[in-house]
């Protein structure tokens, strides 16, 4: 029952544009027009659904396809979790009540067919790219009229755990849906928040709900950005700007969460009050208000849950960065410098036109795939193979292949003696803390490698494991504090930490532990 492959209308350019004499527009006006044409194109697949429903075998005109499609995009967006997306069948199941409401007398099987048809068309299953294409025209700088292809997707399929396939809405779809075309994320958010406060004061719940939902979209967007950043950090710490960009992003996200907490707790208090106060009356209007208030409470609770989730992820980001930095930056430097595969090959190739880029990838493929021993067929073997009965499957399955074990080389950067030496150096009197610069200088006199270990230990001491020390009843704890003095050292930069030892009150700690138990 599905459907032509190219859903996007190819007759997209309005005739009057090309028929009229060339309008004397600046390039900026033309670009704005192109942007609006593209935004318009994103809605075309939805209109197209209602146009094409007449062609389906059967009487489907009663269904409002565009409405179902928008609801589907809404559902997928709301179900986009941190790691994966929305489940195919789950979306269908949630669409069914709406479809059923449009034509209650029709059989349930038909409702499901409609829901599936809409979802498949949003993915555009029929085309290779599983996307849409619209054609529009622009004037080039030399005044020549060029038709261009605009490729976009609304709902895309992404891989999940265990080979499953999930659905995600694309930015285009979110933009069309939220209606915030071509606006700045941050300013739109501030505007939404101001709007929300006014709305709560006037008691307009429907709008409050919309604003809460928009804030939820922002949270989902922050979560996605954070996930990508952390993945890049695992590959190469230096590839991500942990000096400015990421801390800024994290600060922004934490601010966003803090703000939302305040607003949403305000909503919860206000709405709960409204809900409980509304309980006294019996007229239908009050009942309707009450129902909507309860709905809003649910949404706001979900928002808070998502904000909490994002916040805990944000808090994990710092430790992950430090662990990766330890692994990558404190390893012994290699003597030779290799080829930077990303920087010198992938990055320069991607912007090239595909005709040229192909020559590079072809060369890499030809030399990077290794060898294959050619297969030669003997007729005698072929007969044997064809006549051999199929092997019976063992009940227990195939024999497990012996695992390939390789001994991991001992790649410790520092020896035990160096560690002992560093610990001895850092075994400071509790009333005599020292500056990092002094410690480094002393370490350098003992062993040229030792300053790295001392620096590493001191940086760790900046976030001392107080909880562990408390649980294990340690008597002393190394700590480091930054008082703003800059470190003057030939090998290291940063803050000249004050490193000291804190004495812990073991007796009262033990008492505290027993009380806690």
């Amino acid at each position, binding site marked *: 029952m599905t459907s032509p492959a190219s859903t996007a209308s190819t007759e997209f350019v309005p005739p009057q544009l090309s028929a009229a004499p060339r309008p004397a527009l600046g390039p900026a006006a033309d670009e704005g027009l192109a942007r609006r044409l593209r935004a318009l194109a994103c809605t075309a697949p939805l209109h197209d659904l209602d146009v094409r429903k007449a062609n389906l075998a059967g009487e489907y005109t009663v269904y409002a396809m565009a409405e179902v499609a928008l609801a589907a995009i809404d559902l997928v967006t709301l179900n986009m979790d941190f790691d994966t997306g929305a489940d195919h069948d789950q979306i269908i199941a949630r669409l069914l009540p709406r479809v059923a409401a449009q034509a209650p007398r029709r059989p349930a099987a038909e409702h499901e067919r409609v829901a599936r048809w809409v979802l498949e068309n949003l*993915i555009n*299953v029929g085309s*290779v*790219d599983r*996307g849409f294409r619209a054609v529009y025209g*622009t004037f080039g700088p030399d005044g020549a009229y060029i*038709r261009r292809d*605009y*490729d976009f*997707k609304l709902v*895309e*399929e992404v*891989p999940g755990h*265990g*080979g499953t*396939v999930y659905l995600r809405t694309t930015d285009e779809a979110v933009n069309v849906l939220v209606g915030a075309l071509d606006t700045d994320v941050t300013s739109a958010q501030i505007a939404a928040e101001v709007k929300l406060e006014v709305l709560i004061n006037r008691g307009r719940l429907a709008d409050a709900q919309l604003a809460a939902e928009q804030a939820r979209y922002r949270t989902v967007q922050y979560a996605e950005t954070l996930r990508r950043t952390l993945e890049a950090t695992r*590959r*190469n710490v*230096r590839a*991500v700007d942990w000096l400015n*960009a990421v801390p800024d992003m994290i*600060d922004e996200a934490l601010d966003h969460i803090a703000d939302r907490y305040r607003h949403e707790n305000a909503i919860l208090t206000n709405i709960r009050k409204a809900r409980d106060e509304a309980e006294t009356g019996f007229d239908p209007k009050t009942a309707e208000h009450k129902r909507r208030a309860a709905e809003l409470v649910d949404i706001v609770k979900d928002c808070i849950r998502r904000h909490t989730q994002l916040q805990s992820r*944000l808090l994990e980001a*710092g430790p992950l960065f430090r662990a990766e930095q330890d692994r*990558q930056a404190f390893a012994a430097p*290699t003597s030779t*410098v290799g*080829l*930077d*595969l990303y*920087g010198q*090959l*992938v990055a*320069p*190739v*991607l*912007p*090239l*036109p*595909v005709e040229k880029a192909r*020559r*590079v*990838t*072809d*060369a*890499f*493929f*030809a030399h*990077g*795939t*290794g*060898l*294959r*021993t050619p297969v030669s067929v003997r007729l005698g073997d072929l007969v044997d193979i064809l006549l051999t009965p199929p092997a019976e499957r063992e009940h227990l399955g195939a024999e497990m292949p012996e695992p390939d074990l390789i001994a991991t*080389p001992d790649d410790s950067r520092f020896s035990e003696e160096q560690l002992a030496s560093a610990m001895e150096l850092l075994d400071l009197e509790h009333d005599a803390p020292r500056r990092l610069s002094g410690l480094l200088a002393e370490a350098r006199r003992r062993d040229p490698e030792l300053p790295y270990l001392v620096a590493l230990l001191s940086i760790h001491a*900046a976030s001392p494991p107080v909880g562990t020390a408390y649980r294990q009843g340690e008597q002393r704890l190394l700590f480091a504090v930054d008082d*703003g003095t800059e470190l003057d050292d030939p090998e290291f*930069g*940063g*803050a000249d930490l004050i490193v000291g030892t804190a004495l812990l009150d073991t007796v009262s700690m033990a008492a505290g532990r027993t009380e806690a138990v």
Partner: protein
Amino acid sequence: MSETHAEHTAWSESATPDTGEADRFTAPPAAVTPADAADAARLVAFGLQPKLLPARDAEYAGLLRRYREETAFARLADAVATGLGLVVLEVSTRAGMAVTAGEDSVFAVRMGDYARRTAADSADRFLHGLAHLAVAAMSFPRPEDLADDGYIGRITVNGVDAFVREACRRLEERAEELGENTDPATGTPGLEAAWRIYARRSATGATKDARRLAGSTTGIVGKAVAFLTDSGFLQRTGDDAGGAYRTTARYQLQVRDMAGTAAMAELLELGVVPVTDGTATLVMPSDPEDLELAADAGLPFHS
């Protein structure tokens, strides 16, 4: 740039003994017996089974030892390999007799045999090549990793796909910032920017038999890693995120000595001269005015 040239010459130095071998082999007829020739050929035959580890096969290990101890035998084995159209990358206990196919050798892999659609569709051909390049880049993300013999890279299929998509997204963002219109003119598919081809191919898709959609990007990357596993370049370690793999010593040699240089030469021929100074290549320009953040940039959450 200088180091790529250095690498190139280093590679040709190791290759020249093979080519200069013929006259030496014929001129002084040293005491080479047919049994020696058979052993040398046997060693090369072991090298043609890339998944075989010397540690697992006493005969293989014995021949490797002989290669390293007897110069005459080593030259004989090199000559056999060269005669078969093979290039010797390294002979060691960790990588075994690491040989690879020379250009036009019968052992070489051809794109047309690798994936059938590539003959007709230039976009598919590009995507398959890019998948191999991306797997290598992800296996050895830093130049140090490619140079360090002890390094073992770990990749997943979905990770590679996400990595390329991220790079494409950055290019898209940059094009948007510059206000470029990257939509290609209709009817000139060859002029479309390479990243767009990848970006608009879907990452995955549902199929009737729950297998990966072959034309999707994870399908293409999955095919590349499966092929590299068969070549003894990767070893499968798990099923997470579309399949997890780790690299072998042979893969590092192949990428470092063969593929990287070849692709680099092709890129230079196109007039693109990528310049790096060994720092990470994805770094965003840091704002010099915000440098006082350095003190707690590493500890953003302990307040």
